[in-house]
C-alpha cells in the first residue's frame, strides 16, 4: 500500500501546530511563576474544596519551613522493619491523620481557581496534546500501520505519551507547577525530532512488518514516555532537595521565588517513585514482547544484540533504583541519581546504540 500523502502532510502540520501550542503553554507556565498568585493565597482560596488528606502538591512549597519538613522525611519513603503493630510508633507509613475525608474538589475547579496563567497554560497544553495526538494518528493513517516504525515516529509518539501522562498527574495530583519543566522537555524533544531526526512517511522494511510492532514498540513507547516524566521529576527532586537542605542549614531563606512554587522534595520523591513504578512493568513487558518478536523474526529470543543489551542494562538500572529506595543510606538523592542513570541509559540506547552501533536492530531510518 502506498503512503497516503494527504494524511502525511496533515500529520506534519498538526505536529508543528502542537509544537507551537506547547511552546506557548510553557511560556504561560513560566508566566504563572513570574506573575501568578502566590501559592498560599491560592491554597486558601482552594481550602474549603481541598481536603488535606489528598496529596496537594500545589499547596506546599518546596522550601516550606519546619512544619512540613518535620513531617516530610517520615513520608519520604518506605520505612524499615515492619512490626506487628503501631506500638513502636508507626513504622508503617506515616500518612495523614484526619477525619474521614470529604469529597474531593474537582480538579478543574482547582485549576480554574489557581489563576489566569494556570488556566491558560493547562488549557493550551490540553489543546497541544490534542493536536499532538491527531498528528500521531494521521501519521499512522498515512502509512497504514502503527506510527512508531522509525526514530522520528518513536519520538513523536513517546512525547505524546509523556504529555498525556503529565496531564493525568496534573489532574490527579494538582501538579501544574511542574508544567514548565515537563512540557518544556517535551518541546525540546519534539524540536529535536522535527529538525534533526525527521523521516518522511514511508513503508516499513519487511522485518518490521509484523503485528508485534504494535505490541513491542508500543510498550517501549509508553514506558519511555513514562520514564521521561519520571526523569524530569527526578531532576526537580534534586533541585528541591538541595534547596531544602540549604534552608535547613540556614544558608538560604525561604522566599516566594521559583523554588517555592514547585512541590516539596518529599512529595516529588514520592511522585517520581510512583511514576517509575508505573513505567517499570511496562518496560518489562516491552522487553518480553521484544523477545517473542525476536524469536519470530531472527530465530532466537535473546542474542545480546546491542539494543537488546542496552534495554537489559536499562532494566537492571531501574531495578537497582527500586532496590536502592529500600536500602538505608541509598534513599533520597542517591536513588534519584540511579533513576536518572537509568534514563540516560535509555536515551543512549535510543539515540546512540540504535543509530551508530550496527546490529539487527538498526531500523532507526536515520541517515
Amino acid at each position, binding site marked *: 500500500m502506498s503512503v497516503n500523502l494527504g494524511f502525511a502532510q496533515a500529520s506534519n502540520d498538526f505536529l508543528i501546530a502542537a509544537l507551537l501550542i506547547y511552546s506557548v503553554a510553557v511560556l504561560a507556565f513560566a508566566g504563572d511563576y513570574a506573575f501568578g498568585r502566590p501559592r498560599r493565597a491560592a491554597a486558601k482560596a482552594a481550602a474549603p474544596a481541598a481536603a488535606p488528606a489528598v496529596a496537594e502538591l500545589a499547596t*506546599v512549597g518546596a522550601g516550606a519551613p519546619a512544619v512540613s519538613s518535620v513531617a516530610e522525611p517520615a513520608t519520604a519513603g518506605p520505612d524499615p522493619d515492619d512490626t506487628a503493630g503501631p506500638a513502636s510508633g508507626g513504622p508503617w507509613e506515616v500518612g495523614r491523620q484526619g477525619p474521614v475525608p470529604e469529597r474531593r474538589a474537582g480538579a478543574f475547579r482547582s485549576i480554574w481557581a489557581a489563576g489566569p496563567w494556570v488556566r491558560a497554560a493547562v488549557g493550551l497544553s490540553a489543546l497541544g496534546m490534542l493536536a499532538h495526538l491527531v498528528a500521531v494518528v494521521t501519521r499512522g493513517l498515512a502509512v497504514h500501520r502503527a506510527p512508531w516504525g522509525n526514530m522520528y515516529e518513536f519520538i513523536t509518539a513517546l512525547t505524546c505519551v509523556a504529555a498525556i501522562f503529565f496531564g493525568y498527574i496534573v489532574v490527579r495530583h494538582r501538579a501544574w507547577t511542574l508544567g514548565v519543566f515537563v512540557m518544556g522537555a517535551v518541546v525540546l524533544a519534539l524540536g529535536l525530532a522535527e529538525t534533526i531526526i525527521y523521516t518522511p512517511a514511508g513503508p516499513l522494511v519487511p522485518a518490521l512488518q509484523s503485528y508485534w510492532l504494535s505490541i513491542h514498540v508500543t510498550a517501549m513507547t509508553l514506558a519511555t514516555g513514562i520514564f521521561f516524566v519520571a526523569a524530569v521529576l527526578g531532576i526537580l527532586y534534586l533541585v528541591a532537595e538541595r534547596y531544602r537542605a540549604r534552608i535547613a542549614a540556614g544558608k538560604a531563606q525561604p522566599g516566594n521565588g521559583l523554588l517555592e512554587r514547585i512541590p516539596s522534595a518529599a512529595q516529588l520523591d514520592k511522585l517520581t517513585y510512583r511514576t517509575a513504578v508505573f513505567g517499570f512493568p511496562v518496560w518489562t513487558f516491552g522487553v518480553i514482547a521484544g523477545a517473542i518478536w525476536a524469536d519470530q523474526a531472527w530465530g532466537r529470543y535473546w542474542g545480546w544484540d546491542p539494543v537488546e543489551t542496552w534495554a537489559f542494562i536499562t532494566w537492571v538500572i531501574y531495578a537497582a533504583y527500586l532496590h536502592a529506595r529500600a536500602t538505608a543510606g541509598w534513599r533520597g538523592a542517591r536513588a534519584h541519581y540511579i533513576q536518572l542513570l537509568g534514563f540516560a541509559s535509555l536515551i543512549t540506547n535510543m539515540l546512540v546504540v540504535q543509530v551508530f552501533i550496527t546490529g539487527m536492530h538498526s531500523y532507526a531510518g536515520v541517515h
Partner: protein
Amino acid sequence: MTDVQTPQPQQEAVNGGAGEAAGGGAAEPPAASPGWPRWVWRQLTSMRTALILLFLLAVCSIPGSVLPQQGSDPAAVQQYFGSHPGLAPWLNHLGLFNVFAAPWFAAVYLLLFASLVGCVVPRTFRLVGSARTPPPRAPRNLDRLPHSSSYRSALPPAAAVDGAAAVLAGQRFRLRRPGQRGSDQQDRGHWVSAEKGYLREVGNLLFHLSLLGVLLSIAAGGLFGYKADKLLVEGQSFADTTSALDEFHPGRLVSGSDLAPFSMTLNKFTAGYVTSGESRGQPSDFDADVSYAASPGAAARSYHIRINDPLSVDSVKVYLIGHGYAPEFKVTGPNGSVAYQAATPFIPANTGTLLSDGVVKAPDASLGFEGVFVPTGISVDGTLQSIFPAADNPAVSLIGYSGNLGMDSGQSQSVYQLDTTAMSKVSGSPHLLLPGQTWTLPGGKGSITFVGVKQWVSLAVTYDPGQLPALVCGILALAGLLLSFFVRRRRVFVRAVPAVSGTGSLVTVGGLTRSDASGGFEEEFAELAAEIAAAEPGSGPGTPGQAGQAGQPEPGGSPPPGSRTEPGA
C-alpha cells in the same frame, strides 16, 4: 536483611514488596566465634550487595554491546583484530570478545542469583508463617494511627464491633476478635483487627523466583538445544543432518542423531522491492516457497517462509534470515567436456543494491574465476555498479585463472574464496558477461557461459526446549511484579467504647499500610470507614473536643494545609 535464624515474635524483620525491604545489612560480625561465615552470609544477602551486583551486571554488559562479539559476528571480531593489533589480544585475554559467556560475567549473575535465593527462601518461610498467624491485637489508642476516624453509634459496643467485623469480612479481610488467643485476657474491650494484602509479598517472591526460572530455562535451552544455518539455492533441497548444515552449534548434551529428521526443498524465492518514491530500492517483502517432509517418506507439504513467519516442524523452527543471488555458470575444459555446471551462491557486498562477490571453482578443468555480479547493472567509468536490487538487468564481470586450485591436497578451503597462489590469470582485464553469453578463454583453456540467475536464501534451523519455559517464567515475573507494586498490605482496626452519654458507643476506626507504591490507601480507608459507619443505623460524626483526640472531623471545614502534625487544629 537481618539474621535469618531468630525472628523475634513481634518483629517481622523485613517488609514485603519489591520496592522496599530492610536497610542494608552491613552488620559487624557478632562477637561469638564462628563470626565470619555469618558475616559473609549477611553481606551476600544484604540489599546493598544486591545493589552493587546489579550495577556490576549493568556495567559488565556494556563492553558486550560496544565491542564485536564472537557469538554474533565473528567476522567483525577478525576485523577488529586486524585494525587494533596491539589492543585486541589483551581484550581477548579478558574475554571481552565473548562477554556473555565469560566466567567473570557468569560470576556476577550467579552471585546475584545466590543473593536473591538467600533472600527469597527465608522470606517465603516468613510469609507462610505470617499467613498462619492472625493479625495483631488492636492497639488501645487508634487515634495515633496514621489514618483514623471515629463516629458515634447507636448500638452498644459489642454490636457495633460485630457490624464493623461483618463489613470487613465482606471485603475479604482476615479478622481477629478478642478471645481468640490467651494473651487477650487482659483486654476487656471490644475490638476487631483485620489484615489484607498478602498477595503483595506473594507477588514479590513470585517475581524473584520467576527470574530464577528464566535463568534455568535459558540454561536448559543452551544444553539441550541447537542452532544451525543452511544456505539453499532455488531448486536445491537438504535434509536435516549435521553434514548438510553449513553451521551447526549443538548444546553440550546434543548429538547428531537428535536432529529432527525433516527435509526441505526451496522451490522459489521472491523478493519484492519498492520501485518508486523516496524508499525506492527498499525491500518490501520476502517469500520463500518451500516444500518439506517431516520425516523420510512422509507426505510433502508446502509453506511460505517469511521474515516474521518461520516454519515449525516437529518443535524445530526454520527461519528466513537472508538472501542473495546465485548466478548459474557452465564451464567447459580444453577438450570441450563440461567440468562444472551449477548455480553458484554469490555473497552481497552491498546490502542495498545487492552487488555481490563470488568464485567459480572448476578443478577438473584447472580453471577458477572470481566474479562480481550485479542484479541491475550499469557501467560507471568502466567499473560495474548495481543500481537496483532486483534482477532486472543482470550482468557478471569475471577474472579467470588457470592452474592448480589446491583442492586435491586435502586442505579445507572456503567455497567463497579462490586460492590463486598456484594459478595465473588468463587475461589482464575482467570480462563482462550478460545472461546467455559465453567467454571463450584464450589459449584454448576452455570456456565459461553465464547461463542464468537464481536466488538463494539462508535459513536458520533452531531447536530450543527452554524457550517456552522462559516465556512462561517471564510472564509469571511480570504478574508478580504487578502484584507487588499494586497490592497494599494493610491493617484496619475497629474499637468501640461505651459512649460517655447515652446508650450508644463511640467507635474508632484506624488503619495503616506499608508504603504504598501506587497510592490510594487514603481513599480506600476513607471509603472503608464510611462504609462501616453507614452500615448501621443512627450513626453520625463524632463531635469535636471529645477526649481531645486529634483528627476529629469538623463539620463544615477542614484544618488548613500544613498543620498536619499539630494536635487539635
